[in-house]
Structures are given as C-alpha cells and as structure tokens.
C-alpha cells in the first residue's frame, strides 16, 4: 500500500512536467482495496478493471518499469504505448484487461469466468468496478448471467461516492448497493474499504466460493479518492464535494490504519517504515530513470497487432 501511494505521489509530482502524456486516474486513498483483493488472488487468477488501473496493476504484480514506460509513451511500456495509464495490461501477472468505458470490462470478465468454468480451469476472475458502474445496464445484465451460470467471478465494487464530479445521491435513489446486487441472485456483502484486512477477508470468502463452484459474489467496499477523478491534485475546491468530507476520509487513511495494526502487533516499527520508504524511493527513482531513457515507438509499430494471425 505504501509503495502504491508513493508511486502515485511521484507520478502526481511529475505530471505537470508533461513527460507523461496520458490521462491519469490516481488511486491515492484507495490502496487498501487493490492490495486487499489482490492478496486473495493467485497468479493464475485474472483481474479486469476500469480506467483507474494503477492500484490493481501494481497489486497484481505488474512491473513498475513497464507501467512508467507506458505512461511515458515508450515502446517498452507494458502494452507498447497503445494503452497509456488507462490500459495497463500484463497477462503474465493476470492483469487481463481494462476498459475506459464504464462497465465495459464487466461482461468481458464474466466471459473470462465462463471460459474458466467451461475449460474446468482452477481460475477465479475479479472485476474491479465503481459505484457508477452499477448504473450501467450491462452491469445488471452481467450480474444476472454470472448468477445464472454460477461462474467463478467476483464483482468488486469500490464505492467512492462520485462519478467524476457527480455525487451518488444525484444518480441513485437511497438504497444499499448490496441489496441491488443481491436481487440478481448472488451473495452481496460490504467490506470496509479502508481496512485492508477486512477487504482481504471478504475476498477470501468470495474466492473460496468461486473455487468451489458455488458461483459469483458481489463485494461493496466504501472508500474515497483523495484526489480528483482525473489528473494531479484534488479538485474539492471546485465545490462538488466538501473539503471537510475529504479531510474526514483522509483521517481514516488505509495506510495509517494498517500501519497501526502492524505496529501494534509488533511486526513493524519506525525503523522498519523508514527502511521501506528508502527502498521504495530508490525503486521509483530507478523506474523513472529507466522510463525516461527508453526508446519511443516508430511509425511501423503503429500498424502491428491490428489483426491476429
């Protein structure tokens, strides 16, 4: 979590230098969800996400250098400069696909889970969605089909209460998202999205169910993005959300919460944190240096992989 936070902060710090010519959607504040669900998944398990990819990609084991090369539009980016920040994909670590159209990855993940079921593979699929995804018809269609076929799938919903700058209350009637999800015929639970252990526990149960052939689960994890929907910095001052609301969520920072748990259990101390910080700082500096020194694609690269052989 600390690593993801520091990577995001460094991306944010450098963003206005315009060397990363890519729209970014930072996950600062949402680290516990990414790390919590990824910890419950094995290497063979697949993750599909929306446009907010950084957390899932890193937590699933994605290569930082390949990510930063992608964000700097270099040929050795994880998808060779075809995706940018919104499409960090690496099948080797099960980061299987993303969509910049809200809800777009949901049926695809459902199809991936259907394939695993039909091929009798020991593989669980997770799709990372947001509160606004539940408003897309295709999300409802996918929940219905996943429940009907009992495919090994987890709908993991980060409810951060905003779609860009539109609050949940202007988009949905007052109701529990889990009740809505459960009406499609699958179990739906809430996990505390700022508590990585709570996320992990909920995921573990869902993953066991899926592996046992008992079908999909919907998990709602309330959480908050500390920054704007897109770009660097916070945009609360524009008035769509209250500064005080953000500050209240910052007070329940997932990294501090888990840090306190580890310190309380005697697993971690201040010296250990300092060591981690140093190591992370070094890794990030190296990765940026690598990305900035990496080659650009050529015109011939544009025409590759339009069609498969």
């Amino acid at each position, binding site marked *: 979590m600390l690593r993801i936070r520091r990577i995001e902060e460094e991306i944010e710090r450098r963003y206005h230098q315009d060397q990363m010519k890519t729209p970014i959607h930072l996950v600062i504040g949402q680290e516990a969800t990414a790390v919590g669900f990824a910890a419950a998944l094995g290497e063979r398990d697949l993750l599909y996400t929306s446009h907010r990819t950084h957390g899932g990609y890193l937590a699933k084991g994605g290569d930082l250098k390949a990510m930063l090369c992608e964000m700097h539009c270099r040929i050795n980016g994880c*998808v060779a400069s075809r995706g940018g920040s919104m499409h960090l994909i690496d*099948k080797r670590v099960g980061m299987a*696909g993303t*969509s910049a159209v809200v809800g777009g990855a949901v049926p*695809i993940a459902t*199809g991936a889970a259907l*394939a695993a079921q039909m091929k009798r593979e020991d593989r669980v699929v997770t799709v990372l969605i947001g509160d606004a995804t539940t408003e897309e018809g295709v999300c409802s269609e996918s929940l*219905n089909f996943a429940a*009907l076929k009992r495919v090994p799938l987890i709908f993991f919903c980060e409810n951060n209460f905003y779609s860009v700058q539109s609050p949940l209350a202007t988009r949905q009637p007052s109701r529990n998202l889990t009740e809505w999800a459960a009406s499609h015929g699958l179990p739906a639970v809430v996990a505390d999205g700022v508590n990585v252990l709570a996320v992990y526990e909920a995921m573990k149960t869902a993953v066991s169910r899926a592996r046992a052939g008992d079908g999909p689960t919907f998990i709602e994890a309330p959480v908050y993005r500390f920054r704007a929907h897109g770009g660097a910095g916070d945009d609360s001052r524009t008035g769509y959300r209250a500064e005080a609301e953000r500050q209240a969520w910052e007070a329940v920072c997932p990294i501090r919460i888990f840090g306190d748990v580890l310190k309380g259990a005697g697993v971690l101390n201040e010296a250990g944190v300092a060591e981690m910080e140093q190591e992370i700082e070094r890794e990030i500096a190296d990765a940026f240096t690598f990305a900035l020194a990496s080659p650009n694609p050529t015109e011939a690269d544009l025409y590759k*992989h339009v069609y498969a052989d």
Partner: protein
Amino acid sequence: MPWDEGLVNSLVYDRPDPSEGRVLSYGGAINEALSIALTDDPSVFVLGQGVDDPSAMFGTTRGLQERFGGDRVFDTPLSEEAMMGVSAGAAMNGMRPVYMHNRPDFVLLAFNQLVTHAAKFHFMDNGQTTVPLVVWAAIGRGWGSGAQHSQAIHGMLLGVPGLKIVMPSTPHDAKGLLLSAIVDNNPVCVFEHRWLMKKDGVVPEGAYRVPIGKGIYRRRGHDLTIVGASHAIELGAQAAALLASDGIEADVIDLRTIKPLDEAIVLESLHTTGRLLVVDTAWAKGGVCAEIGCLAAEKGFRDLKAPVCRIGLPDVPTPAGYTLEQFFYPDAARIASAARRLVGRS
C-alpha cells in the same frame, strides 16, 4: 405457415445440378458447418436468443443442443451487450464462441462490446490477447419487417479496424466461410440474408474453408462489372442473366468478404469493362457501395468509361407496408435497368 416462411419459400432460385455433387440448402449448410466446428474443436460453443428453440435460428442450429449438450449450445438472456462482452471475454480466454442473432438490428445493442472492446483488444494489449469470436446475424427483408427488423448494418462496421466481415451468397460459401470465421483468430461478423436460407446449392461434405478476403467471379462478361455480396449479388447475377438476353455481358463479382475487401478482383474486372455497378443489401451511402465507388475513383480512375453506379437502399428507413417496400428494395429488373443505362443501352 409462420410469418415470412411462405414468402421465403416462394422465392425462385436456379436449381443446382445434382450431378455436380450433394445438394443442400443454405440454412442446412450453416447447420453442417456449426456441427463440424463443434465436433472438431471443444473450445467452440454456440449461443444466442433461441438457438435451441423449435425454429432453431432458421434451422441453422437444429439438433445441435441435443448432439453437443446445453453447455455448448445455449439460449441466452435478452442482454445483447453483456452477451457480446461475455463472448469476447470467453474468446480472449481460450474459447471460440459463435454468437448468433436472428437480426443484425439486435447487434446494434451490443456495438459497445463489439466495436469498442472485441475489435480493439488485440491492438490495445499489444498482441497479448486474441479474440476469436464469430458474430452471426441474418438480415431480414419483407413481410412487414419494417424499420427495426430489417437493417443491414455492415456498412457501419466497415470503418472499424480489427473486425472482419463476411457475407456469403451461396450454400457452399455459407459453410466454407463460417468454418473459416470460426478458426480465425479475430472477431468476424458473418451477415447472412434471410432470403437466402432456402436457396439450394452444391455443398461438399466434410470440412473445407473458403478463404476470408477473396472474391470470386460468378459470371464473365466484358461490358460492365456488377459487384456485391450476399443477396444483393444473387440479384446482380439474376440481372446479369436478363442482360445477357439483350446481348449485354457482365462480369459478376461476388465479394464474399467485405472486410478485408478483395480490391484486386474489382480493379482487374474494371480494367477490362470500364464500367462499374455496385450492389448492396444495405444503404448505398457510406457502406459497401460508397467504399467500392471510392476504390474505383482512387485506384481505377483511368479505367472508368462512365460514372460508377450504385444500387443500394435509398437514404430512407425501411417501411413495413408491402406497397412501400416495393419502392424501397431494388430487384433484378431495377439492377438490369441501371446496367443498361450504364452501358448506354437504355
């Protein structure tokens, strides 16, 4: 007789010569292709609204669920976008789905998944994933199908990189192109035409493939080139027979695939005839007619002895009423008239 069965049964096609081989209907040829694909490859599965119902998608899926089981041949919820995404997701993970629609109009509900997702993934992830998906649909016409049950949407898809589009006109090609589409590692749209379903033809037994991207001459002539696919080129061939009785001989080119397009065969024929008549089952604007017209202007301009003529649908939605339909759809006689004007013999 249900709905338009009587109409489709009443259509008259040239009878195939049984001495040339086994005769099968167009729908029967598709059924045989699906059966072969399901037998040969356990990763193939067939889904779609009503694929297991008594009418069996014009007979194309008849008996398949009984033979291959409900896990591999199954009915779906009325969720076109999700099912297209499910098909794409399964294709990206080792399966070869054939997703069937009894009208292309329903594919429009799934354009987000087809155009923005399935067609793009192989490019977007730099070749890590392939999407071997077949999207099948049968264009409707006549008997009150109207504005929302008759659309031929292939023109809208011509400008989508990553997709292939095939449009067979004979039972032989319906089988061979479907088998090629299923083994292809890209999303392939197969657009059939409702009015061809009862057409008989010589269809070899067993597996064979008709190559995607290759057109074929159905008739040779020197006065003009008639080019198109699917039911439109069937009408084009009927028109060519009418023209022959007037001493006008046409090259008739069945494109078979409209994306990728066999440009070479069109330009070769145009080089000989100098006159081009493009026919399509869809609207003339912005589709196959427009693209081939542009091809002639771009790469065959010096061969053109007359302006390109296109016979597609007028820029009007399909009417449901019988009388209006007669004004809306071109037929062989109208194509023949256009050809006569093109060669200056009207």
